[in-house]
């Protein structure tokens, strides 16, 4: 039941978190930086079944929280809920709908920002709503950056799980 790609998730996500901390910060647009781990989670959630998406979301969230002032597990919790959101909402759309990655990157970012805010407030973090509002450009950036990330993850997914061909 547990696929071998799940074992790859944690080291890969730690590596991506290091890239986020050191390299992706140079992609800062305005005041916000695209969240590489979030984009990978959305792409994987769209490409794979929900259980595997949640394992990757958990590992990505934990890796992100390791280097953030947020409580460990808060981002993992948000990411898992986003994968579940993708699982349930995507059934409303045709399977081959081309704009699904863009739609879910934008919708997922909005949900992530609100969830993260609520969790941090729950844990008594001093965070004002204006900070959430100022991060909303992230919705647009994620809707753009999901395209190359989705393409890369689809390439990876096809290497992991090649399509059966009937000869």
């Amino acid at each position: 039941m547990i696929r071998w790609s799940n074992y790859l998730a944690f080291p890969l996500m730690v590596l991506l978190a290091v890239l986020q901390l050191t390299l992706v910060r140079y992609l800062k647009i305005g005041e916000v930086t695209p969240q590489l781990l979030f984009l990978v989670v959305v792409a994987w959630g769209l490409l794979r079944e929900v259980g595997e998406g949640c394992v990757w979301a958990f590992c990505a969230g934990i890796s992100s929280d390791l280097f953030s002032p947020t409580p460990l597990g808060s981002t993992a919790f948000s990411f898992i809920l986003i994968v579940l959101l993708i699982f349930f909402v995507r059934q409303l759309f045709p399977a081959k709908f081309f704009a699904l990655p863009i739609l879910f990157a934008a919708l997922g970012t909005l949900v992530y920002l609100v969830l993260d805010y609520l969790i941090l407030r729950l844990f008594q973090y001093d965070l004002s709503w204006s900070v959430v509002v100022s991060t909303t450009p992230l919705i647009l950036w994620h809707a753009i950056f999901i395209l190359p990330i989705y393409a890369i993850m689809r390439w990876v997914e096809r290497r992991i799980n090649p399509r059966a061909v009937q000869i």
Partner: protein
Amino acid sequence: MNPNDTPQRIRWGLIVTLIIVAVLFMIADSTGNLSGLLSLVRDPVAVLMQWSADRTNSFANLFAGPRDLQEARQYIQELESQVATLQRQNEELRAIQGEYQTLQEMFEHANETPELNRILTQVIGYNTNSYFQSIIIDKGAADGVVVGMPVESARGLVGQVFRTSEHAAQVLLVTDNSSSIPARLGESRATGLLRGGGLGGSMTLNWVELEVVINIGDVVVSSGLAGRFPADLVIGRVIDVQRSQANLYQQALVQPVVDFDSLEEVFVITGVRPIDTGVFDTPDS
């Protein structure tokens, strides 16, 4: 979904387990029960980050070269026009001798405070969460860095150590929304509370009494009250003043002197002695 389908049940069981583990982690971390375990994970990754930061800085400089040349030409033109303005401002600066003296005293104070030991550290990472303004440095508990220590750069105050592991530490920047520092104005010596503005916001110096005259350009320094930060560390300059006779206090918008996007090396001040308020305790307590 058929509830009798075993693979489906395993899958949803796994998802529920992951959610529960995430919630347990949150509770354990917020109560401080995970710090030892987290250090074990963070330290090896900090070494990887150090390596990656070195490579990415070189990489970024490589690409910044040609762009810098074009920017430099434009910058020279801007500088030439600024020279004329600065000459006029230079005359004005002579008039504000009081502020100059305050700054001079501040620098002398920095040289005369040998009890403030400083550890030189390298910035190896920035925040992964959009809501926070933080950096990661390459020195941790093993180097004598503890939570709460102030962090400064050559230009001024950067922030405060928020978390530590053996060989790395997270620093919450003064611009973070949750940051609040007792501060004073360099010239008038009036005190207030400096709050970080968070993402896209400005730092504000609050609770300054109305009769105090705040000038644009006034230097804002740490006051040393409450003992969390040493006194007279430069934080920023006043860029706007908001006052109304309807209010009891006025506030000033403050621009930090530190460029947080280009931080590479910072000092952790290790010699701060928190003020002992025990003498104020009541006999019953």
